[in-house]
């Protein structure tokens, strides 16, 4: 939970005096997409984690790789919420905004808390940049920022001065601005610079002069905070480490957690991992990560298109590997037919969908949860498929393992839903011990399984799963395909009885997964009562915090967060019926709400947002208050 920074008495000067610390602070770094804001934010995140604060981040960047400099649409921002209490969201409104140019100020200042602090690089507030940001007069001079505290100084000039001894060109020297700014931020929050210095040395190992220049800029920014005589709000805070379970911690993004979870899932199954992918934002990071993990028996294949990516993954599963493919909405749409084949041939497969705003190309770099229907229903024919949704970067690790388990135990493709927010955001993660996960080793069919030595590829076990038969196994030759088949032999058979039996079997198998997954728990609150907020995916953070705040105010509200989106846990219907009202916050126009209504005949109400930005805690709190008014 973020609180407003204490407002500063008049005439306070900068210096090493520490201020009474709030529980949590939200800082947003905003600049041109070429200013290195994501890198600054990422490194600030690391130093925050190393200081023991709990944290959540929200990278928010444009779809264009190098948008024209100084423009409003070229602004890239990174928000971090950190503190000594439990942090579940990147924070509603920043306490501190670092604006590297007029466009960054213009696009981000509206979100800043009243009384919040603006740190601006006055060196960039020149006529040209002001025009690009559509300012007639510099906002630093016209009093338009008076509800905030403003600290404007020429970061560009200070950086150039700091890196002068290294003889860099003007352009290269100015690239160190983000390190200067980071140095100042590290000073503000009383952080150790050494890990950053080590990181810079590693990053620029081949160009030591760049490492030295960046370190000099970092130190200069830090020294500026420490020594500069500043009138106004610049002061130092020390946030105590957040209380958390003992253990080893690191930061993790959703994309990293999914990559590791897939590797872990394959190991628990005793299989090699095959990952077929095609570049698409925001899913590519998983392919990048796995491409570096070949020693774990991982084969990555960058296919010629999305269809080839899933087809190769299915081909690998047919061959006895654990096939995985990954994409975002538009790519998932292209994979639809192949998913149907995996359902029809009953081969294990994990499909990761890093959702983004849609339809069509939509909002490539923004987050949304609008592919739920696509995941649950989006294929031709009666094509049931389990769907698992991750709620946070660290949760994505377990969800990836769960998706692998369901895929191999039920011989089915499984959709793992994540989104742009989870994929890119980082949070502290208590490093799990892989040995603590229950293995689910796969056994391939080695001998004929039918009477008189017959091979029955579509005989079923108690769970309704068929045997997995690897080509290359002597004596088990058989043919599979997308045409309807005989329930036992798998030979082509589109007789009415066969299609009825096989349709029922495919549905029954997936429905039966409900018995093989954990019962739905209540995240906060208890069964029965006035209001339940039911969420799935990355809305976890804001729902959790909003419900916590509302309960502190004495409101009767509980939070239920669903991981198994399809099939739904067996007890979920009864649980939801125990509340007078059910409210479903979603970053779409009400998809899960519709699923719940359909499955349980309950009057679930929607709470929707499709701006490409996550819910704020305040938005959900307001909805709770309205529902209970």
């Amino acid at each position, binding site marked *: 939970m973020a609180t407003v920074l204490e407002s500063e008495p008049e005439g306070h000067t900068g210096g090493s005096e520490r201020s009474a610390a709030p529980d949590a602070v939200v800082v947003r770094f905003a600049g041109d997409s070429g200013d290195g804001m994501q890198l600054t934010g990422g490194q600030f995140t*690391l130093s925050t*984690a*190393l200081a*023991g604060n709990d944290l959540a981040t929200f990278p928010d960047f444009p779809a264009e790789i190098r948008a024209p400099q100084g423009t409003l649409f070229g602004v890239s921002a990174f928000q971090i919420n950190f503190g000594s209490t439990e942090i579940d969201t990147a924070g509603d409104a920043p306490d501190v905004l670092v604006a590297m140019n007029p466009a960054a100020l213009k696009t981000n200042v509206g979100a800043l808390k009243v009384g919040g602090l603006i740190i601006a690089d006055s060196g960039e507030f020149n006529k040209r940049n002001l025009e690009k940001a559509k300012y007639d007069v510099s906002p630093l001079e016209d009093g338009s920022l008076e509800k905030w505290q403003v600290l404007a100084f020429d970061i560009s000039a200070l950086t150039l001065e700091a890196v002068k001894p290294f003889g860099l060109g003007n352009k290269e020297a100015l690239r160190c601005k983000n390190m200067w700014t980071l140095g100042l931020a590290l000073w503000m929050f009383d952080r150790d610079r050494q*890990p950053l210095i080590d990181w810079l040395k590693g990053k620029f190992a081949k160009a030591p002069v760049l490492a030295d220049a960046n370190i000099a800029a970092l130190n200069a920014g830090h020294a500026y905070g420490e020594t500069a005589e500043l009138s106004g709000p610049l002061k130092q805070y020390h946030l105590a*480490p957040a*209380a*958390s*379970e*003992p253990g*080893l*911690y*690191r930061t993790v993004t959703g994309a990293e957690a999914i990559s590791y979870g897939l*590797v872990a899932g394959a*190991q628990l199954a005793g299989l*090699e991992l*095959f990952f077929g992918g095609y570049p698409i934002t925001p899913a590519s990071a998983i392919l990048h990560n796995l491409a570096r993990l*070949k*020693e*774990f*028996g991982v*084969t990555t*294949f960058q*296919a*010629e*298109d999305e269809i*080839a990516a899933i*087809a*190769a*993954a*299915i*081909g*690998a*599963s*047919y*061959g*006895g*590997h654990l*096939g995985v493919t990954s994409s975002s909405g538009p790519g998932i749409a292209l994979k639809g037919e*192949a998913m*149907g*084949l995996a359902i029809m041939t009953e081969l294990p497969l994990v499909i990761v969908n890093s959702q983004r705003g849609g339809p069509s190309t939509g909002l490539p770099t923004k987050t949304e949860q609008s592919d739920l229907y696509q995941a649950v229903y989006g294929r031709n024919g009666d094509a049931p498929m389990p769907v698992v949704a991750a709620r946070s970067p660290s949760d994505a690790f377990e969800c990836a393992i769960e998706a692998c388990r369901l895929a191999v135990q039920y011989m089915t493709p499984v959709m793992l839903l994540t989104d742009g927010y989870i994929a890119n955001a980082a949070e502290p993660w208590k*490093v*799990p011990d*892989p040995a603590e996960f229950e293995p689910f080793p796969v056994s391939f069919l080695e001998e004929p399984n039918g009477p008189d030595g017959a091979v029955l590829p579509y005989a079923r076990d108690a769970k309704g799963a068929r045997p997995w038969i*690897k*080509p*290359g*196994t*002597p*004596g*088990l*030759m*058989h*043919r*599979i*395909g*997308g*045409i309807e088949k005989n329930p036992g032999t798998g030979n*082509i058979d589109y007789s009415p009885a066969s299609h009825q039996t096989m349709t029922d079997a495919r549905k029954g198998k997936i429905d039966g997964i409900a018995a093989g997954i954990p019962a739905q728990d209540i995240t906060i609150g208890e069964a029965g009562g006035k209001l339940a907020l039911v969420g799935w995916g990355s809305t976890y953070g804001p729902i959790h915090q909003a419900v916590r705040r509302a309960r502190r105010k004495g409101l009767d509200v509980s939070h239920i967060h669903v991981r198994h989106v399809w099939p739904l846990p067996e007890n979920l219907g009864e649980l939801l019926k125990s509340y007078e009202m059910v409210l479903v916050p979603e970053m779409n126009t009400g998809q899960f709400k519709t699923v719940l209504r359909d499955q349980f005949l309950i009057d679930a109400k929607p709470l929707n947002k499709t701006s490409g930005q996550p819910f704020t805690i305040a938005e959900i709190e307001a909805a709770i208050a309205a529902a209970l008014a």
Partner: protein
Amino acid sequence: MNEMTKIAVQTTLKDWETDQEVRWCPGCGDYAILKAVQRTLPEIGADPAKTVFVSGIGCSSRFPYYVESYGFHTIHGRAPAFATGLKLANPELDVWLVTGDGDGMSIGGNHTMHVLRRNLNTQILLFNNEIYGLTKGQYSPTSRMGTVSPTTPLGSVDRPASPCAFALGAGGRFIARAYDVSKELPAVLKAAHAHQGAAFVEIFQNCIVYNKDVFADFTEKAGAATGQLWLKHGEPMLFNKGTKGIALDTDTLSLKVVDVVDGDWETAGVRVHDVKNRAMAHLLVEMPFGPFPMALGVIYDDPRPTFEAAVIEERARASAGKTANLAALLSKGQTWTVSADQA
């Protein structure tokens, strides 16, 4: 083919027949191709357990159901991608791709290009009947201009694609041609199987229902001598019982038909076929039928390292000296410890 599959397994044609009723139209050229494949497999010592037929959609793609090996009938046009994943998972498998002119040149053209470019070690059999058979007779990307079909009642107006020229252009290292009822088909299949890498074989196939006899000009006995140029490595490119040959016009860098008198092909300037001559392969696959005979047999065969070998080699190199310790991976990078008294 690889070390494993080189170990010859004794089988007969019968061993490669399934119990499934073959459901092509009576008289379809696919029957002859099926028999040629089933005749070839014992001759190359193929092991049914290590052989996989992968297909897309179309008449040709029913093929796997009729071969007693492993088989995967996939989705329209995508068979090369399934085969790629399968070969990367298990390079020991001997994978045959069966496709058609619609499946492999139209909806799956992209995958045909990339499987050739990557040089996956597989045999690609493209049954070219110049028509969509399974969907009842629409024109295909290889149909000749003016083809009348349900979707082109006034005749097609688009120019046809040439599968062999496409395959060569995509980087294919083995290009061959044959036709369904040809006695030479097993020999061509054997050569394709012997080639390490993607081996592309275009097989002209007579669709007796929707596009009957479009290849009759050179497949029927009457036109065989003048219409068929069977290429053999190291032998002169002769046809019409040795009375005609293919020579190179060095001024225009194009091929020409020359008369051969008394078997003296050297004087006539007839070229000797060299399967490693890529430039000549381009000219041969582009030879227009009519003024020229149809180039048949192994047109080009010059192997290069395969895709799966490169992937395996790279994986081994990347893994060298590393252990797959997941716990160590998870706790890599900058970490911090919360001790019990901090909690």
